[in-house]
């Protein structure tokens, strides 16, 4: 608790310090390459025959996903707190790579916890992290995936809080983490809002983003919250089906406590965490950020789901029609838009948060499709 209170104080002080935001903006502009483009997907729009579809190109950021927006912010915060070491959890490895990158650029020591199962499945990302000087620790406990990596990172932090900052990768965990991560990711929605106004003269009718823990969706949705005319849709992973193996927390979960937050979780009646599944390691989490639970309850955002197969098909569709290979996480949002766009008229518009690129998923998709490229 002392650790999160110290973080809350440090973030409150940073929040009112223009120097802090100026430094972050400097890095986002010259190192990450922001603002990233908003792109009108003409061929996808034509093929689906309905609403005009725009893609917010977070995949063009340095390291290939939205995760870097948050890790740079938290690394600058860690430095302000006088901490010389950062740690993180990672599932597919995108947040781990983004944390390793921030550690390298700011000269911080870095350890990333990663489920042993994910270490085997994502060797390339493990190698990228190691190249940047980060130590990757395989986690052998539990299901050996994302939630177990979070457990292990929290255990590390309990013992090392005096020197170490825990860079949580999503809008989850104890307060103030969900707020901090949402704020750092809100650059996505702020840019999108302005870019839509500049390109089309109006706001989008619908904004769609994938939801695991929910950081890319929170960052996209937050700046649109007051725009009641903009429909917000989060897409969870339905895995092999909502009645089978999935990680659709909002669709199938119940109120509960996990990892220091009270939110919607996938638990059994005793409060034990249930096994989760998704074809995308980044959505494979049995909880969801508490603010998404709030937006689901208030009805401000709608939450739907897409199956593994729908996501794989969307992965291929976007690659063929637009020459953009999306991350499998992102492909869930694309999959929903493939269903939604034809039901809307040509005057309407949809923005998809293209949260990450799919290079990391090519080996896995090839394997699932029966091609051997490894």
């Amino acid at each position: 608790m002392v650790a999160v209170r110290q973080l809350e104080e440090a973030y409150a002080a940073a929040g009112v310090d223009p120097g802090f935001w100026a430094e972050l903006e400097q890095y986002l502009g010259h190192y990450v390459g922001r603002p990233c483009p908003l792109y009108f997907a003409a061929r996808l729009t034509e093929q689906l025959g309905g609403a005009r579809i725009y893609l917010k190109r977070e995949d063009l950021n340095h390291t290939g996903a939205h995760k870097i927006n948050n890790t740079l912010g938290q690394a600058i915060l860690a430095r302000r707190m006088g901490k010389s070491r950062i740690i993180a959890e990672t599932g597919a490895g995108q947040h781990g790579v983004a944390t390793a990158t921030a550690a390298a650029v700011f000269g911080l020591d870095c350890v990333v916890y990663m489920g042993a199962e994910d270490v085997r499945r994502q060797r390339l990302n493990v190698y990228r992290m190691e190249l940047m000087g980060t130590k990757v620790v395989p986690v052998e406990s539990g299901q050996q995936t994302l939630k177990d990596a979070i457990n292990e990172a929290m255990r590390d932090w309990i013992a090392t809080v005096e020197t170490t900052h825990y860079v949580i990768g999503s809008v989850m965990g104890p307060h103030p983490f969900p707020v901090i991560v949402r704020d750092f990711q809100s650059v996505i929605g702020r840019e999108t809002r302005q870019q839509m106004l500049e390109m089309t003269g109006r706001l989008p009718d619908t904004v769609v983003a994938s939801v695991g823990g929910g950081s890319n969706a929170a960052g996209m949705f937050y700046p649109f919250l007051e725009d009641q005319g903009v429909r917000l849709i989060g897409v969870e992973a339905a895995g092999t089906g909502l009645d089978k193996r999935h990680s659709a927390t909002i669709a199938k979960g119940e109120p509960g406590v996990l990892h220091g937050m009270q939110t919607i979780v996938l638990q059994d009646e005793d409060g034990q965490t249930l096994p989760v599944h998704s074809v995308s390691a980044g959505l494979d989490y049995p909880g969801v950020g508490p603010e998404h639970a709030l937006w689901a309850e208030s009805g401000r955002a709608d939450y739907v789901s897409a199956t593994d197969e729908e996501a794989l098909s969307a992965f291929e569709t976007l690659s063929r029609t637009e020459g953009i290979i999306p991350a499998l996480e992102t492909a869930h949002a694309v999959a929903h838009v493939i269903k939604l766009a034809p039901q809307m008229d040509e005057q309407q518009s949809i923005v998809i948060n293209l949260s990450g690129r799919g290079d990391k998923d090519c080996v896995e998709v090839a394997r699932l499709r029966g091609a051997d490229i490894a």
Partner: protein
Amino acid sequence: MSASNSGTNRIDSALSNASTGLWPFIAAGYPCLEITEALLKAMNGLPIRGVELGIPFSDPIADGPVIQHAFSKALDGGITLSRIFEMVSKVRSEIDYPLLAMVSASIVYRVEIEPFVKKAGDAGFDGFIVPDISLEEAPTLAKSVGEQDLRLSMLVAPTTPADRQERIAAVASGFLYYVSIQGTTGARNALPADLESQVRALKASTSLPVLIGFGISRSEHVKEVCRYADGAIVGSAIVRKISDSVKEGKSNDALVEDVTGFIHQLATG
């Protein structure tokens, strides 16, 4: 029968006569519930002050590898809350010492606070340790626990500032649980050099007894901390003894004998 019916809470009684000593921790359902039941009964004849029964949880963030392993084996073996409560209510009349449940907030909130506290009290638990509940969230639970005349022990860490220690003590009942080290549960070779001064300072600021846990693994440690604290909690070292006996393929009786022998040695040096 819940503690409320007996008039005095057993935790208070055990700590009131200034007798310091050992509070062993074991994990419910590890390696199986029958052995947990046998251990609870066997410990009644030992020179211990009370017992902490760990309720297995899928994601025990405050625990090191030994207790994690025991919890995950117990869950694989099909342990449930209702089976634990049933077993405790069966053995309660045969044991005299206070029994605390060490339980994650995830479990308490899932069952919901009031029903959880009521069911645990009815089963025969005298109090709770909820290692992952914060001071800010604790008052609601403390109120329910108090209404059942049960006790809620709260954790104080080496990093907890003095003003926060006082606020924790105001919510806690029974005793304060001082976490001897920064980190997760698990045996350590040596106790921290400043443990005595830390604990003496804490005791000076509260009327509650103070027990020390985390990292205590030897009879010398128990004897040492009992000089200035009101008791010592040993968990991982005992659970490791259980898992060693399991690995050696011992019979249930031999395992219980081994483990009670080890606890006796911890308690008496």
